[in-house]
């Protein structure tokens, strides 16, 4: 299989993992390692004066893993730029998952602020991976603004609904000159495999693994699904027909 290349960095794995919603940091780390992912998201939060929490970072920092800080919690491009600068300082990476979703009910990304922030952050030297609507026109605008990938949603974050935006994802994949990472809403390995068969470059999965009965086993299932889907895409799927076509010889050999 081809490696995935983003901003000059090569990835063998095409599965990105989010770190939210796991029952424990240990379980999160085991799932990350089992998935063989090389890209893991991390959020930021304000800390208390009497901070006593376990440091989650120690569970996700591994030599083979690219940290992908996100801007979750910001509502505008201006806030996103400050969050990005804090993330770069905190984690020592200029890679950024840009996410601007002001509405807490559906967490849908604000396209206008996302485009504005992408333009600004690219100028500031960030490798910007924007979470965005499955809008082919917007995705081209983000690409023109210098986004390193586009990350259109399959369905609202955390819903596990699958590829509800499938028709638009197909157009985005067809038109994009940067990797297309399907992000949000992927709820089952079959959804991830379907996205990869369509030609998506990668999938970002969090909730479906974190809330599974056995997150480590589910991480392995997603790993296998993403590999299977990508391998099928590269192999070239057979065409879909209407009329039956025999796959065995129809000559009458019994006389």
């Amino acid at each position: 299989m081809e490696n995935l290349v983003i901003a000059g960095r090569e990835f063998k794995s095409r599965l990105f993992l989010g770190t939210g919603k796991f029952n424990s940091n240990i379980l999160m780390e085991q799932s990350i390692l089992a998935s063989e992912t090389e890209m893991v998201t991390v959020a930021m939060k304000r800390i208390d004066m009497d901070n006593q929490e376990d440091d989650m970072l120690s569970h996700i920092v591994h030599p083979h893993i690219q940290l992908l800080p996100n801007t979750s919690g910001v509502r505008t491009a201006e806030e996103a730029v400050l969050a990005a600068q804090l993330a770069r300082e905190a984690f020592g990476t200029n890679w950024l998952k840009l996410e601007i979703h002001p509405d807490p009910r559906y967490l849908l990304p604000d396209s206008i602020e996302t485009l504005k922030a992408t333009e600004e952050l690219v100028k500031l030297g960030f490798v910007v991976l924007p979470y965005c609507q499955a809008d082919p026109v917007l995705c081209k605008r983000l690409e023109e603004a210098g986004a390193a990938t586009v990350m259109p949603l399959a369905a609202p974050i955390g819903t596990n609904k699958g590829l509800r935006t499938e028709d638009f994802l197909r157009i985005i994949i067809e038109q994009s000159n940067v990797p297309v990472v399907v992000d949000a809403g992927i709820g089952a390995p079959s959804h991830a495999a379907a996205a990869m068969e369509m030609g998506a470059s990668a999938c970002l999965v969090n909730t479906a693994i974190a809330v599974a009965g056995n997150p480590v086993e589910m991480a392995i299932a997603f790993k296998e699904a993403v590999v299977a889907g990508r391998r099928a895409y590269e192999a070239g799927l057979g065409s879909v027909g209407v009329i039956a076509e025999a796959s065995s010889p129809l000559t009458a050999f019994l006389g």
Partner: protein
Amino acid sequence: MTIKVNNEKISVENNATIETIVKQMNLPSFGVAIARNNKMVPRAEWSTTLLQEDDSIVVVKAACGG
């Protein structure tokens, strides 16, 4: 003087720097960043950045998230 740290009012000495308040907070050595009045202050400048009355300091660290 009084400043705010993550929206919580605290009193600090007049010659306090960002480093002064950081020392009270049991911060991990990696994965932390600070903004003063909505502007990021690099770690290298924490010890030389003097606080002023009504400053708003935001201290963030890594958290789980997708």
